[in-house]
């Protein structure tokens, strides 16, 4: 078992003929990800690393009805269309790597996906990996290893840092999900936690948050209400970030009073979630709680 994606997941790469799409298709194939098709409008009939390319998702799915997930490397201007296309083509999981998608567009496709029962991961995210099974994303595969720890994270590189520390400490991962750094994302902490709660292999969860928004507070509430029952440890980036400044993708603090480092740590610690001071403490904390 794993969360959302595993060795049976069959993937379509949208925007497969672009520089990024091509590069990561190779890396995903090398990792063992089962990529069955690619889509780039106007490039139907070609191949990328042996993967057949189609003009539309409709055709790709007609030829590869087993496909159930897609990953999007399409430029921001066309990325929303690609998400709708993936949802309409029946994908259960859609990973949106693309950065700089207008937030109103994200609102649109995220709400549409929910209605249609599709899980959108991202946008502006590194993707999802179930170590040893499949990697649908741009994370370096070798730093992850199979094991009992779930990871859900708002930050890319920080995920790698912590996953690598866990791996070195002998703590492998069921699944690691980078949910993306944009203000509006398709899969939130609490939604990811519902999935990890139901996954019997996941014995503990690492929550990697950052300043801005209130996802960490909502995660704490979920723990408090007993809707997430497994051990959780957390790390929150941005303790020393000055207020009102946009730190990379960490959004501004507009929702009254929420979004501060202190607020998040307080909310988590109040419900018994241990919050690490440095990413390097995470493996020890996990060992303590597991």
């Amino acid at each position: 078992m794993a969360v959302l994606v595993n060795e049976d997941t069959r993937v379509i790469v949208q925007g497969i003929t672009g520089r990024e799409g091509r590069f990561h298709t190779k890396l995903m194939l090398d990792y063992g990800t089962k990529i069955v098709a690619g889509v780039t409008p106007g490039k139907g009939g070609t191949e990328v690393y042996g993967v057949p390319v189609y003009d539309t998702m409709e055709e790709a799915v007609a030829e590869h009805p087993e496909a159930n997930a897609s990953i999007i490397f399409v430029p921001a201007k066309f990325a929303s269309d690609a998400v709708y296309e993936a949802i309409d083509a029946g994908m259960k999981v859609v990973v949106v790597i693309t950065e700089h998608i207008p937030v109103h567009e994200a609102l649109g496709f995220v709400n549409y996906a929910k209605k249609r029962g599709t899980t959108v991961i991202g946008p502006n995210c590194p993707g999802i990996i179930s170590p040893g099974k499949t990697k649908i994303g741009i994370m370096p595969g070798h730093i992850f290893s199979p094991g009992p720890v779930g990871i859900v994270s708002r930050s890319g590189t920080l995920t790698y840092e912590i996953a690598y520390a866990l791996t070195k400490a002998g703590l492998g991962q069921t699944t690691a999900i980078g949910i993306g750094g944009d203000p509006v994302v398709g899969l939130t902490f609490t939604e990811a936690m519902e999935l990890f709660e139901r996954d019997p292999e996941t014995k503990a969860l690492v929550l990697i948050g950052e300043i801005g928004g209130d996802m960490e507070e909502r995660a704490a509430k979920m723990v408090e209400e007993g809707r997430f029952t497994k051990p959780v440890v957390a790390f929150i980036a941005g303790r020393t970030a000055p207020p009102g400044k946009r730190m990379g993708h960490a959004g501004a603090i507009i929702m009254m009073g929420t979004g501060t480092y202190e607020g998040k740590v307080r909310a988590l610690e109040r419900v018994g979630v241990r919050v690490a001071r440095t990413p390097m403490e995470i493996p020890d904390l996990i060992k303590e709680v597991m």
Partner: protein
Amino acid sequence: MKLFEFEAKEILKKYGVEVPPSVLIARGEDPAAKLAEAGLEPPVVVKSQVLVAGRGKAGGIKIANTLEEAVELVNKLFETPIKGLKPSYILVEKAIPHDVELYAAIVIDRSERKPVVLASKYGGMDIEEIAREKPESIVRLHVNPEVGLRGYHARSIGKKIGLSGKALSSFANFLTALYRVFMDYDAELAESNPLALVGDKVIPLDARLIVDDNALYRHPELGERKIEETGEYTEWEIRARKMGLAFVELDGDIGIIGNGAGLTMTTMDLVYEYGGKPANFLDIGGGASAELVKTAVGFLFEFPKARKIFMNIFGGITRCDEVARGVVKAIEELGGLRKPIVIRLSGTNEEEGREILRQAGLEAFTDPIEAVKKVVSL
């Protein structure tokens, strides 16, 4: 992109909202002539057009009882920096006598993933202040995007902040117009505070509109905002942005470079944790080229606050060898190792990177904690 008050009000006007009669005076124009031409009857409000919060408290808004006084104030405000920034425009508006100041805004609720309307009968202070002092006064309504914010939603909100009769209709018209602006302009925030209640109609005394930078390509009519005009950035931040660097100036002395926003913020946190103080946040992002790394390192060489540099790289898409090459290029091409530099390299092509640095006489750390301790101790 934050719009100026006068721009936000122009847009609201286009959407049928009544705004105070006004005249905009650009730096270099003749205030007396412009005021005479506009024919505004005093008293008037003279408002510095800057994009910083708390403009009023910082002395950017003045009342003039005569046109002569208004001219004087315009000239004075042009020379008055608000949080370090002198305005390029002054807006002079007819003063609108009113008793009640309301608050109305639309933002995106990240967790609900819907637009949310916020309104309060206690306008005039910041929403954070209202939330602290009169939390029960804030009415919230999430908008179902399929239906939009319609008259009846707006009336329902208006009733809850105590309006009725014609004032309720006026508020409802204002709020539905604000929502259309919010949607049409890809806004992150559309706000009026204070929104004055004048007799039985509402008039926005101030208006704020922040447009999603990612959607600006759809709004060419907004033009380019000169980064110097926004007052949001320091001189060094402006220089960095023009070079394409994601840089935030801070108060310490350790220049920080990281890859990825989360890791770079964490690097700052680690520096603090071990007694140091970061001079900046500088994120080189994912998959940085040697050229970009060179630019970033060179920038911190120049940046005077940074007495020493701490570079924290975890290689994923970013390759450690490429980063190392960039560091070496900076040293070779930009005048040598001008400041002490501590580098932590881990992840993709770590060994290759370490070797490249070693040949240039630099030793990279693997453990970020050891690296932090080192840089703080320098």
